[in-house]
């Protein structure tokens, strides 16, 4: 309508209603680019796509309208390029560009800030990506089992502190240092980081640092989604516990901390041991101690008893006694056997004796003696007869012998010649030869002669 009401303007300047495309395009370009130099636009991301050349295209939309937007790959200042998502609310700084060739108007983005919940989600993802190495579970420090001194970084007036102290009051012997900070609003993260630094530096005996605050709106949690928080916690020598925000949504602070609990109360319960539980545990330990000690004792006792038994078995007196008993036994058995043997033999002897008595030879002897005497008598009688007879025979023999004796012949003047060499009687001259020695027996004495000459007879 406006155009028709001001026709004069066009007529006077251009003098025509007829335009070429490029002319109207140039006009539009001027109109758009000069009227909107640099501007902030808030909207939701839709139809997001990444081109091969690295440019990012999406539509910025709200309930009624849509605007085409580009982030050029050369635009390195835009932080969250890689983490953009459809449906996220963003606030973009840039300028409008009209492209005559396509006849399209693009919003060229130079800066982009997520807003609201989207802001936190985007920030979280971008930061996790950037510092992924720091979120490694292996980097997490162990919490002490029995902490003596802990520090709370929180608001002095928040419910978080009250909740934490309520749980810890009678729970454990512990010193709690509270380092008051703002837990929301611009720059709160810097206060928190400074607190971490101060505690590390000036309160070196603190064993656990707890960063805590109660739940709140997403905007309130913004300080816990910052790069500063990541680096501050990373640099802490003391283990850091985070109990920030919501049960379901983990803040960056939760993720980088060495331990995370959903609420301040839960943190107090987990960090500080319950003395009643430990007392109960001590009671169990007392029982176990006694039990295992008694076990050791009874084990030793058993061993001792065993040794005693073993020793008893090897007792030399006992051994001696055993040997003695055996010996006695043996002697007893031996003497018993001996006695038995003797009595047996005695019995046998007695039996023999009786038997012998029954067969006593005296009777026989007498009989034999009588016979012997008789035989003796007969023998002596017959022997005397025999002797007499033989004597008579001998006398007769002697007389005969005397009559035949060569000596008797010799007495009558004969002599007997014997060869000296062989004592053979020489009966013929041929028995000897010249030179032989002869023995000549005479009636009295003998002569040794030598043969001078032999003369054979006829």
């Amino acid at each position, binding site marked *: 309508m406006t155009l028709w009401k001001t026709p004069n303007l066009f007529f006077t300047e251009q003098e025509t209603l007829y335009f070429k495309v490029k002319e109207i395009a140039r006009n539009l370009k001027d109109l758009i680019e000069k009227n909107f130099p640099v501007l902030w636009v808030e909207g939701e991301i839709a139809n997001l796509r990444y081109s091969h050349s690295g440019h990012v295209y999406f539509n910025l939309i709200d309930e009624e309208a849509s605007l085409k937007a580009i982030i050029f790959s050369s635009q390195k200042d835009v932080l969250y390029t890689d983490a953009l998502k459809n449906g996220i609310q963003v606030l973009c700084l840039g300028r409008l560009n009209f492209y005559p060739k396509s006849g399209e108007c693009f919003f060229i983005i130079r800066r982009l800030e997520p807003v609201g919940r989207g802001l936190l989600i985007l920030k979280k993802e971008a930061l996790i990506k950037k510092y992924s190495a720091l979120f490694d579970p292996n980097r997490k420090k162990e919490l002490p*089992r029995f902490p003596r001194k802990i520090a709370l970084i929180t608001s002095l007036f928040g419910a978080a502190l009250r909740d934490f102290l309520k749980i810890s009051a009678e729970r454990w012997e512990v*010193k709690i*240092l*509270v380092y008051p900070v703002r837990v929301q609003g611009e720059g709160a993260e810097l206060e928190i980081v400074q607190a971490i630094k*101060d505690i590390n530096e000036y309160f070196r005996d603190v064993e656990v640092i707890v960063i805590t605050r109660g739940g709140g709106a997403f905007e309130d949690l913004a300080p816990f989604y910052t790069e500063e928080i990541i680096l501050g916690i990373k640099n802490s020598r003391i283990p850091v516990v985070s109990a920030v925000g919501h049960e379901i949504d983990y803040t960056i602070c939760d993720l980088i901390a060495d331990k995370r609990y959903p609420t301040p109360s839960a943190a107090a319960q987990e960090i500080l041991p319950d003395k009643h539980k430990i007392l109960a545990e*001590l009671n169990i*330990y007392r029982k176990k101690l006694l039990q295992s*000690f008694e076990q*050791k004792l009874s084990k030793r006792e058993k061993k001792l008893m065993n040794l005693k038994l073993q020793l008893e078995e090897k007792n030399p007196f006992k051994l001696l006694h055993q040997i003695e008993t055996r010996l006695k036994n043996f002697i007893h058995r031996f003497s018993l056997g001996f006695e038995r043997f003797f009595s047996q033999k005695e019995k046998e002897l007695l039996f023999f004796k009786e038997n012998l008595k029954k067969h006593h030879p005296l009777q026989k002897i007498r009989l034999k003696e009588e016979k012997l005497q008789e035989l003796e008598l007969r023998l002596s009688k017959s022997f005397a007869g025999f002797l007499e007879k033989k004597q008579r025979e001998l006398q007769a023999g002697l007389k005969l012998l005397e009559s035949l004796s060569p000596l008797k012949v010799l007495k009558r003047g004969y002599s007997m010649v014997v060869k000296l060499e062989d004592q053979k009687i020489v009966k013929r001259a041929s028995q000897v030869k010249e030179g032989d020695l002869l023995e000549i027996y005479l009636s009295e004495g003998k002569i040794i002669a030598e043969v001078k000459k032999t003369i054979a007879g006829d």
Partner: protein
Amino acid sequence: MEKELTFEKAFKRLEEILKLLEEGDPELEEAIALYEEGVRLIQFCEEKLKKARARVEVILKEGDRFRLETLEKAEEILKNAGK
């Protein structure tokens, strides 16, 4: 040694003693000594626990210096300071 004994040290030693008695094979004299030490440690830990409570102090930073205050006093100071 006794003077520096902390709850944690006592508890750790107690667990060590239990392990020695339950799994190890100590000499009788050692077992007796361990048992007695264990009983003493349990008493020590119990004494400590019976009195156990949390003591709270607030760190107040003044320039580069730090001051510790009770919770009540710190609240008052910070309220007045408008924090």
